[in-house]
């Protein structure tokens, strides 16, 4: 391996000194993603990258990838860092490639109904741009403000618009990817919307940056709807709100978005902003279309909500929640840290699933909120979050929540989303006998494991010694299970919000 100083000089020669960082502070910023990592994780991994590189062009990304052949440093691509399972965090230092300087919207083709964007652009930026041209994105990830196009593709996100606009996979016409050998691959033929001409795009969906670095995406766009209207309904409990969401699909309605949030979320919001809505278990539904169509959908939604004894809330609440829809985790400010568990569960079992999530949260004595949204006619995303303070000794044990949620998702015939450092142990559980076929994909694209290695089929550690270089993925599961057990042994419930206990009782 070349010396770090030599590697630094080569990086600076490629990008210039202002776009290569190696100070401790800058490296520290990149040592975690949206989830808080307990300090104990530093015993297992070198989470701090050796260098942070900020390329501005596809050619620069290719040059960085080729440079790693000389330096033998691992490459970790990163978008907005809004992931929650350590997919964009280094495990052995190396070069972290921050894509956020590649954030331009390159072209909008109204005839082909596509927009071409660089991978570092955030979804909100892209959405604002296409809306200014009279179009809309068919689907937008949950954290659109911070989530970059490349990041969401690599995590295989779901989010707003799925029920109506289809999956993120359906919304991508083509990708430019720098492969581990430094060459550029276009993953599909743009004219071939059905993907018959050897479409490799799906392989990069959810790949967590382990097959290559996405630098550009051609996304489909749809005409901007004439009217868009958010509706909110309050329910007696969360399971009833879940039944309401299921009822929407059973009635063959296709709103743009249908989600639920529990009252705890609003307790946290109220602690931060006095003017936030009153705590309640509610469903948020956004309908779009022509004026007549929206009126008809609203009537149908009102009818479905009435069946479940739901109460329609004033339009101001819906408007506000819709306006703030991309900023869902402000509760993080109460606790310094927050952990999200993102799972897909069958829509038919959503009422039971939200109850299970609340039960796990309460058993582990955590503060948190249960949330879910409809992904398609069979699937719901169950994405509860819990608050944690990783500066306290008990803080890291909140990670046990993720393990328990994952186990519950599997029991419900669903699956967790994401792999990364923390969820790698799920791969075999997810794919069973087909796991070897999945590992073949990595073998074909990155046989030398140059890009984001050690996060899919094995867990690399920072240690170079045989026997300790990697731990089997189930080892991670054991670690998280221990965290969950320690969490249960904790005598008291977390109290990040004074009103929380009171709310739980009321």
């Amino acid at each position, binding site marked *: 391996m070349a010396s770090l100083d030599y590697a630094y000089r080569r990086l600076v020669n490629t990008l210039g000194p202002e776009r290569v960082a190696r100070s401790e502070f800058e490296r520290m910023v990149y040592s975690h993603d949206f989830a808080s990592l307990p300090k104990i994780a530093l015993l297992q991994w070198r989470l701090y990258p050796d260098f942070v590189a900020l390329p501005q062009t596809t050619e620069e990304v290719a040059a960085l990838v080729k440079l790693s052949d000389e330096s033998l440093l691992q490459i970790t691509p990163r978008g907005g860092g809004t992931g929650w399972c350590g997919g964009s965090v280094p495990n052995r230092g190396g070069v972290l490639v921050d894509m956020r300087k590649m954030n331009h919207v390159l072209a909008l083709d109204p005839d082909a109904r596509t927009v071409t964007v660089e991978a570092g652009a955030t979804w909100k930026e892209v959405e604002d741009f296409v809306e200014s041209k009279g179009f809309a994105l068919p689907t937008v990830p949950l954290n659109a403000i911070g989530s970059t196009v490349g990041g969401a593709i690599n995590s295989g996100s779901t989010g707003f618009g799925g029920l109506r606009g289809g999956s993120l996979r359906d919304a991508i016409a083509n990708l430019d990817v720098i492969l581990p050998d430094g060459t550029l691959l276009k993953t599909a033929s743009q004219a071939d919307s059905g993907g018959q*001409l050897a479409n*490799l795009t*799906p392989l990069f969906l959810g790949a967590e940056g382990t097959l290559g670095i996405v630098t550009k995406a051609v996304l489909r766009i749809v*005409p901007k709807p004439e009217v868009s209207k958010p509706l909110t309904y309050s329910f007696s409990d969360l399971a009833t709100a879940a039944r309401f969401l299921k009822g929407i699909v059973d009635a063959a309605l296709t709103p743009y978005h249908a989600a639920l949030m529990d009252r705890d979320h609003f307790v946290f919001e109220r602690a931060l902003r006095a003017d936030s809505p009153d705590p309640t278990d509610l469903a948020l539904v956004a309908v779009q279309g022509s004026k007549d169509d929206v009126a008809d959908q609203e009537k149908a939604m009102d009818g479905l909500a009435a069946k479940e004894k739901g109460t329609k809330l004033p339009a101001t609440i819906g408007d506000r929640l819709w306006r703030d829809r991309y900023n869902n985790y402000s509760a993080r400010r109460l606790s310094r840290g927050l952990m999200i568990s993102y799972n897909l*569960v069958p829509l038919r079992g959503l009422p039971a699933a939200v109850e299970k999530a609340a039960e796990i949260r309460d058993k582990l004595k955590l503060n948190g909120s249960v949330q879910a949204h409809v992904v398609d006619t069979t699937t719901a995303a169950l994405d509860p979050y819990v608050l944690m303070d990783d500066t306290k000794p008990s803080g890291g044990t909140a990670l046990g929540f993720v393990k328990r949620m994952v186990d519950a998702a599997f029991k419900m015939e669903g699956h967790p989303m994401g792999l990364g450092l923390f969820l790698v142990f799920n791969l075999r559980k997810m794919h069973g006998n087909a796991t070897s076929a999945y590992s073949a994909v990595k073998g074909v694209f990155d046989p030398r494991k140059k890009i984001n290695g050690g996060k899919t089929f094995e867990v690399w550690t920072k240690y170079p010694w045989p026997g300790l270089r990697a731990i089997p993925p189930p080892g991670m599961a054991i670690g998280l299970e221990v965290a969950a057990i320690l969490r249960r042994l904790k005598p008291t419930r977390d109290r990040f919000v004074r009103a929380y206990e009171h709310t739980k009782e009321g």
Partner: protein
Amino acid sequence: MGLLRDWNYVEKAVQIPALAELIREALIRALFVRDDRVLPPDLIGDLNRVPPVTVKVKEDAEVRKLVRVLNGQESTVSLGLSAEDYHYFRTQLGVGRTREFGVTMRPRTLLTYDWIVPEQRGVQLDFTGYAGIEFAEDGHRAIAQVGALWKRLYDEALAQGHYVPFVPTVPLDFAVGDALYGDAPFSSFRGGFASYVNALRTISPYGQRARIGFEEVANHGTAYDLLHATIPLAGEFFIPLSAALRFEAKPAARKTLTYAFDDPAKLSPALDKLSRFGPGVNWVHVTDALAAKILRPAIAPEAFTVQVSLGATATGIAAKEKTLDVAMTGFKTKNAETPNPYDVPVDAYRKTADAAARSLFVGEVRVPAKSFGDFLGKVRAFGDQSAAKAGAYASLQETGTASTYPFFSAPKDRIKMYDLSRGIRAIVARFPGAAFTSRLAHLWEEEPNFLRRMTLMRSLKLEIDAAHVVQPLVVP
């Protein structure tokens, strides 16, 4: 749609010194039509070979065992055949062989043409008897065995309160498996067949049951989306046995509106507008006069017929119809009585399918909706030049693409198929944004990015099917 074997064969053939002098397209033509003036007799013999053994699959255990025998994990003795069959099996498969043989799946109904390279001395699986459908008790989904007929799936789903969103653009009597290892043209207004597949139950090349995807939920964020990357070529990576399919709820009200157009210059902008319509449209089916006559022989055909299937609440459907009428500017007549190709009794469907299947199809052309009329005009002119009357079936998608299946009234011989395909390719090249996606078009394509992707696909196949059992690649 299986393709890698043909593609690999052509790629290897162009490297043979004796054949390298032929240009790629001439070689493909010679291989496709089995031209004995160009190709050596041995090679022609290989291309004309048919799999000697056909196994009618009744249960997946048989397939598992067969695969284990073929990849050498088990002996033929364990197949439990009678002495006569055992002898035949061993002789035909050439156990103790010197070249690869494997297992291939036979599509029930093939829209276009057979593959260039047939299975060499291996086993063909016939899934016509493997046709169960298991609807979920709660939720809009079903597990359909690959031999299950689409029409049966569609009718039974409706009876149980579900709606199967994907329909065959050319209404032949396809089985579900035909979309995985054949060329069934299933699609909806909102997406292709793959968008509605949650998972495949398969047998891996090592004889294990392997589920690709998740039966009850969508496949997002689970490492690589191998399911959707391989669906068009699924039969070359695994042996698909069943598909977990995602449906929609049956809408409270459904209505098929039929618009007639007499001018292609009015049809194209109307289709373009219609493709921006939004939710509520289940499918849009377009036919020219020739196709309309086949589908509805009792009704005088219009120059162009656009059928739009709407689904909505009982009150909402009127609003949708109103908006639709505005979008379909320029139509000549409109009615709500003309039957659509799908909601008809099964016998009538089969009768129509038999009639439609007589035509010669060359594969799919994806053409921008706004160029559809122009494209069709060129196809018809080409048909007239080739002494083969031309027509087309198409389905419109909300991406603004008309998935078009040109056909010809001509005998189905391979020379004609090839020449007509080449003619369509030449027409497609004149339309920006159009793509010809037939198997022959894949073999002709020499765009570097496409070749790179195919090479990666082939590498992936060789990694996953290291046992060389599932449609093993063949070299000339």
